[in-house]
Each structure stands twice: as C-alpha cells, then as structure tokens.
C-alpha cells in the first residue's frame, strides 16, 4: 500500500491526495478516449455517446475538485438535457446517418488533422510549461467553499461581479427562442381541422371507407400496381400519383398533399 502511495505521490507531484489522483488517472483516460472517439467514430450516435462519456468525466472532475454543484449541473444539463436532444435529432434523421467520406477540397482532411494536432500540441505544451512548478491551491478555504458553501459562492459571484453578464444571458435566451420560431414555426393560415370536421368531411365525401391498397385483385402487389375494381377496371386512387412507373393517372388534386 505504501509503495502505491509513494508511486502515486511521484505521479502527482506529491501534493494531491491519493483518492483524487486515482480518480484522475481513471477519469482522465476515459474523457480523452471519449473525446477522440467522438471525432473518429463514423456512426453519429456512437460519436454522441463518446461525447457523453467525456462530459460525465468532466462532471466527476468537478465533483472531486470540490465543486459538487458545478459537477452535478454539468451532468444534469449537458449529459441529461443537451446530449439527449442531440440524440433525439440524430434518431429523427435516421440510424444510418454517418459521415460522408468524400473530400470536397483535396487534401483538406490531412491538412486539418495536421493543424489540429499541431494546435493541440501547442496548447498542451504551453499550458504545461506555464503551470510547471506552480503549486495547486486549496479550494477549501473556510470562508468561501467549506461546508456546502460552494453553491453560495457561485450565487455571490453571479449576483455581484458577473451580474450584468448573467442578466444579459436572458437576452440570449429570448433571441434563441425568437430565432427558433422564425426558422421553424409555420404559421397556420386556416384554422386547424378538428377531428369532428375531418370525420364529417369523410362521411359526406361519398367515400367513407379508406382508399383501396395497391395491387388489390390484380396480378401483382407492387406499390405501383393499381388495384382492380370488381369489373376489372383500374382504380386510380389506389396508387399515389407520385409513384414512379404509374402513368396516365389523374393527379390527386388535394392541396393537403403538397406540404
């Protein structure tokens, strides 16, 4: 046990408690693997899940570094809400949606990875150099962070020093809501048809029963094969007008089909 502690001591500069060091060496690789997997995995859902792993690890990092509120909020907001919405969209798009591997600009992929790795190295080395020899600060000073004061400290900062920035984020939220409405909300120009109206229309249309399916009574049940009526004639409403291979059928003149 003491050997482990002394090795861990070397790894961690001798100043970090063992529990924190162990957690770091477990979570660090997980978060890194998640980040790399997020970039490299082809399947969009797998990619999103890797990102979830990274975010969870970050949340745990905050927890072990005496920021329980921040850590849990990270898990609740990022993994619990934002990534779920990502997954929601990915699932709507379809399970086979994966990256196209065709390059529009030749050599762009290589150049981008080269620059990316270069940038990562640059930042890692410079940050590493900047923190060389600096002592970790204890975040547990009795006045600011002890005994569950983490939440209070954050509140105090939000409502004093960063008050204006905090209030201004409400403007951001309003913009986002208005923007979503602008881009996605189609205004209804006619009142929505109620179930009652639809049913009534159907009864009065002279054809209360559903349209015949394609291929009924005919020799083939392919989607483009119109159904045959009892007298052997073709039932044009049994196939959609847009089905390829169907010709000389009257187009359905229904304005609702357009959208």
């Amino acid at each position: 046990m003491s050997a482990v502690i002394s090795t861990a001591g070397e790894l961690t500069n001798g100043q970090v408690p063992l529990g924190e060091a162990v957690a770091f060496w477990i979570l660090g690789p997980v978060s890194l693997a998640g980040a790399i997997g997020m970039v490299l995995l082809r399947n969009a859902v797998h990619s999103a899940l890797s990102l979830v792993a990274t975010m969870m690890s970050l949340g745990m990092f905050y927890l072990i570094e005496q920021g329980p509120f921040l850590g849990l909020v990270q898990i609740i907001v990022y993994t619990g809400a934002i990534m779920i919405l990502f997954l929601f969209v990915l699932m709507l798009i379809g399970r086979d949606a994966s990256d196209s591997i065709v390059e529009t600009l030749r050599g762009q992929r290589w150049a981008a990875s080269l620059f990316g790795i270069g940038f990562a190295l640059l930042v890692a080395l410079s940050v590493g150099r900047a923190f060389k020899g600096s002592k970790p600060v204890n975040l547990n000073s009795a006045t600011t962070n002890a005994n569950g004061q983490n939440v209070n400290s954050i509140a105090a900062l939000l409502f004093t020093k960063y008050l204006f920035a905090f209030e201004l984020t409400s403007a951001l939220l309003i913009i986002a809501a208005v923007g979503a409405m602008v881009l996605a909300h189609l205004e209804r120009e006619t009142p929505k048809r109620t179930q009652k109206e639809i049913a009534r229309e159907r009864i009065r249309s002279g054809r209360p029963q559903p349209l015949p399916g394609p291929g009924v009574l005919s020799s083939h049940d392919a989607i483009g094969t119109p159904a045959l009526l009892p007298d052997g004639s073709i039932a044009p409403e049994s196939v959609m007008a847009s089905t390829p291979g169907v010709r000389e059928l009257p187009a359905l003149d229904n304005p609702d089909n357009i959208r």
Partner: protein
Amino acid sequence: MSHLLLAETAPIHAPSVAYSSLSPIFIVLGAALVGVLVEALVPRAERYAVQMVVTIGGLTAALVAVGLLHNTAETTVAGALAVDGAGLFIQGSVLVLSVMSVLLIAERSVDVGSAIVASAAVVVGSPTDRRLARTDRVQTEVFPLLLFAVAGMLIFPISNNLLLMFVALEVLSLPLYLMAGLSRRRRLLSQEAALKYFLLGAFASAFFLYGLALLYGYANSVDLPAILNASKASPKSDVLLYVGLALLLVGLLFKAGIAPFHSWTPDVYQGSPTPVTAFMSSCTKIAAFGAIMRVLYVGFNATAWNWRPIVWAVAIASMAVGGIFGLTQTDLKRVLAYSSIAHAGFILVGLVALDKDGIASVLFYVLTYGFSTMAAFGVLMLVRDADGEATHLAQWSGLARKSPFVAAVMTVLLLSMAGIPLTSGFIAKFYVFKAAFHVAAPLVVIALIFSAVAAFYYLRIVVLMFFAEPPENGPTIAIPGWSTAVALTFGMVVTVVLGIFPQPILDLAAKAATLVG
C-alpha cells in the same frame, strides 16, 4: 442539524448600477422586448408599421441618451462596464448607422414586401413559398432581432470584463446569424450564408472562450484592468498571457472580418439580404473594432511590444487579401466584402499607434467607413433586374447612360472608399496613417501601396459604369421609397461633408479618445 442550514452565509450585496450611464443599452433592450411582444400581440396587418415605430423610436431615444452622456467616464456594475469617451463615440456611431439600416430594411417600394423574406420557415421553392413571395407579408421578427444585435453592439465595446464581452459577442452574433438567412430573393444562397456564418462564428466564439479561460488562469481574473496589473508585475510565466491573447484575438478578428479570419465575409455578404449586409458591414465592424481597441489598449497596454507584430502581420495580410482578391471578383457584393476586409486592415494600422491620436483616428475611420459602405449597399438595392438585385459587374456596365445620378452617387462612395481627396475616406486614411507613422513607418508605407492597389478596383467599377457599353437587357433602376432616399442622402452627404469639413467630427473624436478601465 442546524449546521446544515446556511445561517452563517454572509449576505450578498448587489453592486451599484449607474442606470443613467447604461440608459442607451436599457432603452434598446427594452425596445427589443417590446418588439417581441408586438410580434405576439399585434395583428399582422399593423405589425410592420408598429415595429418600425418601436425600432426607430428606440434607436433614436438611445442615440439621444448617448448624446446626453457625452462627458461620462466611469466604470459601473462592479467594474464590468466602462462607459467612457471612446465607448460612447462607438455607441453613437452604431446607433446612427443602425437607424440607417432600419430605413433600408423598411424599403418596400423597390421589391414587394421588402428585402426580407415573407416567412423563413417555409420550404424554399414550395408552392407556399412562391405564393408568399408575391404578397407583401414580411418576417417582422427581423426588427426585434436587429434591436437585440444593436444592444449587443452597444455592450461589446464597453465591456471591461472578458466574460461580459463574450456574452455581448453572442448577443450581437446570434441575431446576425438569423438575419443573414432571411433574404427574400435567392433564399438558398441566403440560408447557406447563414449556416456558414453560424458555424464559423461558433468556432470563433470557442476560440475566444478558450483564450478567456487561459487569461483567467494567468491573471486570476477576467477584468481587463486586473489582467493589465498582472502582466505588469507577475512572477508567473507569460506563456498563458500570450496564448490567451492570441486565442482571444482570433475571436475578435473574426468578428471584424480581418484576414486570415475573413473567409466567411464574401459568402455571407453576398447571401444576406442587402440591408442586413449593410448593417453587418458597418455596425458589426465598428463594434468589433471598439472591442479590439479596448482589449488591446486597456488589458494589454503593458505588453504592447508583444502584440504589435501580430497586429502588423494581420493588418498587412488583411490589406493584401482585400486588395488582391477583390480584383478578381465579378459580383459587386463580393467586391464590397473584400473592400471591407482591406479597410479592416487600414483601421488596424491606426491601432498600432497606441496613443490618443491612434484612438481618435480609428474612431473617425470606422465612422466614415460605416457611412460610405452603408450608402453603397443602399445603392446596390436600387439596381435590379427580374431576379432581384443585379449585382454582377457586367450588369453595371454603362449604368451612367441609364441613370447618371445613381452612377454619380456610387462613384462618390467608391472614391471615398478608395481614399481620393475631397471625400471622407481620404481624411480618415490620412489621420490613421499620420497617427501610426511615428511608430510604424514601414507599415504605413505598405498600407499606402495597398491603398493604391485597392483604388484600382474601385476605379475599375467607375470606368465600367461611365465608359462601357450597357448590356442588351440590362438592369433597371428602381425609384427608391422615402426611407431608402433618406438613408442614401444622409450617407452620401456625410461622406462628402466629412471630406470637406471634417474638423468638427475630428475634434469630437479627439475629445472622445479616452478609455477608462
């Protein structure tokens, strides 16, 4: 168990807020909120008129407030905002130019409705889209969005705290991303522009945020004065400071459209509705330069030796890209986009001066450039063919025969951008170069060479308009409505007057050239 309760918590004292100094911001934000409510409550038929009144009223009231504040110099809300001469000058310029762009957006006589789409959510090319394009319905949300963007632009250059600066950056960017996609004609191009702007903008914001984090690691604070103090006397390694500054600058240079972070500019300028392009090229640029100035002059004053070479490099790159690539363009909106990149380079030349003259010259330059470019885009709205605006250079050939007046107006504006004497552009360039000459003489020489290169392509358009044969079925010149007429006249008059009697505004800029922090 009472130790669990938070009885021992020290009470939080709210910081004092100088409401009067911040009144322009509150007025614009308030008008934006009223605008959102108008969208919800006022019937569609009256919405357009009501929005116009709210928007122009709000902006004008804010402008008056800025005027009343002219002697203010203080920091407020726990040092997060610094209301000072330079900041107020920038705010005033943004407000005047945003009123002009609202007037351009309000133009409804050259196109049915306006330059703004009827409903952005309708699928492009669908029957509903075609039907709506013929009605005079407009997505009136553009007005509150513009107001929000203006509010961001008012806060951006006076934020004394990088975190607030970031939030303000987002507040000004998000509406712009949306507005870029609201073009009535060529909607797919417009949506592509919006998407490009959004993706690249988000990327730039991430850089800004990363830089902010590193600077916090260095100075243990995100306040600009605190960063300055830390950089003056810190035993720490300076690596974090420089990497942080570099990443921060990426975000800021992107917003100002400076090479090598300019690649979005031509596409977005071309795709956006022309009044929105006018708004972006003038107001956004002014606000971004205000923020760059505050970061460099207040936060990094003591480390100027380290950032000056960077500013030199990007200034030269920007002038080169703007000047050389601008020559190869065939679309007038793209030409103006490259011209804005080149102008950004010239403004940066003024920034290396790092003294009062430098601030004053930059303030004067951004103001005059804003007026010229606003009016130029306004003229662009008038030259039309069946597909909307005729922006291809070939369609502009021989325009003087069809409408000598429009060609003359455009010529004056282009000459101003080229920096020909007797226009405001000349005075602006002169003062910027004068301010920078004693610290960066070689840079000024390079800038002079590039302004000659850039002048070539402005003059090329002038020659094209006056001495080339008009094409077979050339564009028609639309008669502008009152709002465009007002905006155009104003921009034109300012461009000429500041070329001949610049002294009052120069004095004002010199008086305003103070930064508190």
